[in-house]
């Protein structure tokens, strides 16, 4: 679009866009600022310049053992994503390169499992967890999060794998490549970017999951989403400490998220918008 835009026009649009962006980002920014205030400052009215104290961060760790839910979040999100990849990579690979008449139906059916409202299976899952001793365990939640995200993982991988030209595989087979050659020299280099994007998006989704983590954990396996939700009670955290806990909970995922904008569109629309 080689259209001449006057400089004034560009400045006008820039100002408008920046105002909108800052308004949208403001709650996050304000939480970060508040986390650097003392508790007295935090409730002393609107103020964008904190005293840059880190006492709230220290307090959250010393009073609430912040490190434990943080590690639970890491273990649950990364663990469930890796488990899902182990199951999904072969499935997506097979569907992309050896499609049958039913492949499309299978994919659509997998997508349909994602449409099931979580609350519809709250009762059975809760009872199963209670009776099998999975309640408040990391292993139980890891498996559950894996199942929840499996359809998205298969779908994302499938849309990436489909972009790998099948002729390359065929040519390799004609040249007498073994299955092992296929995997090492073709699959791996061409599929790694797609797998990496899928991993990234699913770690984000699992990290932010807040229905099952709240239902199925108390203290032992509680990740950050459940930990922070417990501060909604009146005797919960004060403003600055809540902000510090929140900032630490969202910072890693915010940064990962910025790197995965493109994949986000693709993953969450099941390839319908690219």
């Amino acid at each position, binding site marked *: 679009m080689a259209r001449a835009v006057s400089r004034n026009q560009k400045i006008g649009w820039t100002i408008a866009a920046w105002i909108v962006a800052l308004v949208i980002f403001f709650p996050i920014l304000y939480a970060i600022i508040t986390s650097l205030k003392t508790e007295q400052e935090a409730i002393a009215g609107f103020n964008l310049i904190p005293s840059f104290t880190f006492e709230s961060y220290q307090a959250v760790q010393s009073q609430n053992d912040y490190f434990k839910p943080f590690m639970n979040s890491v273990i649950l999100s990364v663990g469930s994503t890796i488990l899902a990849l182990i*199951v999904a990579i072969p499935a997506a690979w097979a569907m992309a390169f050896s499609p049958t008449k039913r492949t499309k139906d299978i994919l659509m059916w997998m997508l349909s499992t994602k449409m099931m409202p979580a609350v519809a299976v709250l009762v059975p899952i809760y009872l199963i967890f209670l009776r099998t001793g999975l309640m408040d365990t990391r292993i139980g939640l890891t498996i559950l999060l894996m199942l929840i995200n499996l359809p998205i993982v298969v779908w994302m991988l499938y849309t990436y794998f489909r972009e790998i030209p099948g002729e390359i595989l065929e040519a390799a087979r004609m040249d007498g490549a073994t299955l092992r050659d296929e995997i090492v020299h073709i699959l791996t280099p061409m599929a790694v970017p797609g797998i990496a994007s899928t991993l990234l998006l699913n770690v984000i989704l699992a990290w932010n999951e807040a229905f099952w983590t709240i239902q199925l954990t108390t203290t032992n396996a509680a990740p950050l989403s459940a930990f922070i939700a417990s501060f909604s009670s009146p005797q919960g955290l004060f403003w600055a400490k809540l902000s510090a806990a929140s900032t630490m909970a969202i910072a890693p995922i915010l940064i990962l998220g910025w790197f995965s904008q493109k994949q986000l569109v693709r993953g969450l629309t099941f390839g319908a918008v690219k």
Partner: protein
Amino acid sequence: MATRQTASLARLMRAPAIVLLLIWMLVPLGMTLYYSFLNYNLLNPTNTSWAGWFNYQYFYTDPAFWESIWNTLVLTLGVLFITVAGGILIAMLIDKPIFGQGIVRILVISPFFVMPPVAALIWKNMIMHPSYGVFADIAKFFGAAPIDWFAQFPLFSIIVIVAWQWLPFATLILLTSLQSLDGEQMEAAEMDGAPALSRFIYLTLPHMARAITVVILIQTIFLLGVYAEILVTTNGGPGFASTNLTYLIYRAARLNFDIGGAAAGGIIAVVLANIVAIFLMRAVGKNLD
């Protein structure tokens, strides 16, 4: 190309994912269906009996049920309206030639990565709190009385929070769609003297139609399940004023220990979600081949 050997290998590679999802779908859903026909309360588990359609009747005739259905509708439609309308406007704004486009984009999509409990607590305590929130500070600055958002407008407050979380998603997808718009066509229309509004209605909007559909359908799936935002702000109250269907079922199961009733509610939720899902599947399915 697919020899018998690769075909059976492919079947083997597909099997684990299919079997797992099959179990994940059938077992809990079957159990929910079964429980929905039982008089089963966790406080009195020995006294369990066959209930027939009682749980459904009970759920259906409970005034809280209709209130929660209404709230679910208002919440879903309210958030959809804000995010789609806002998303179109913001996407068009970001698509303009601006300085620092990359940073603007990052700032705008950020709320999507904030986990629901954190988003809700930031809004509850730092933005909408009647004494310490930014809104209260603004009201005081203008000499007005601060509003107690969650007491006076509980459902609206939750709509604002959820819309803030989903606006980035809508914006990002609509922006992606906008960027694939044919610039030459737009230029031709401009040269022919088509005013900005008609260019928007006849070129931009039809081009984005598909993306808008996808945004609406995907968001609806997630919006029907809004939970954590309600839990940490209003707890569904005052009364049932901000209880949606998901929250009502959660209350039945976890606070009233009514397994049968919660299961019946769950089945109703499945039926509702399926109505939406059918449309979504069609939209996505078209893109497969």
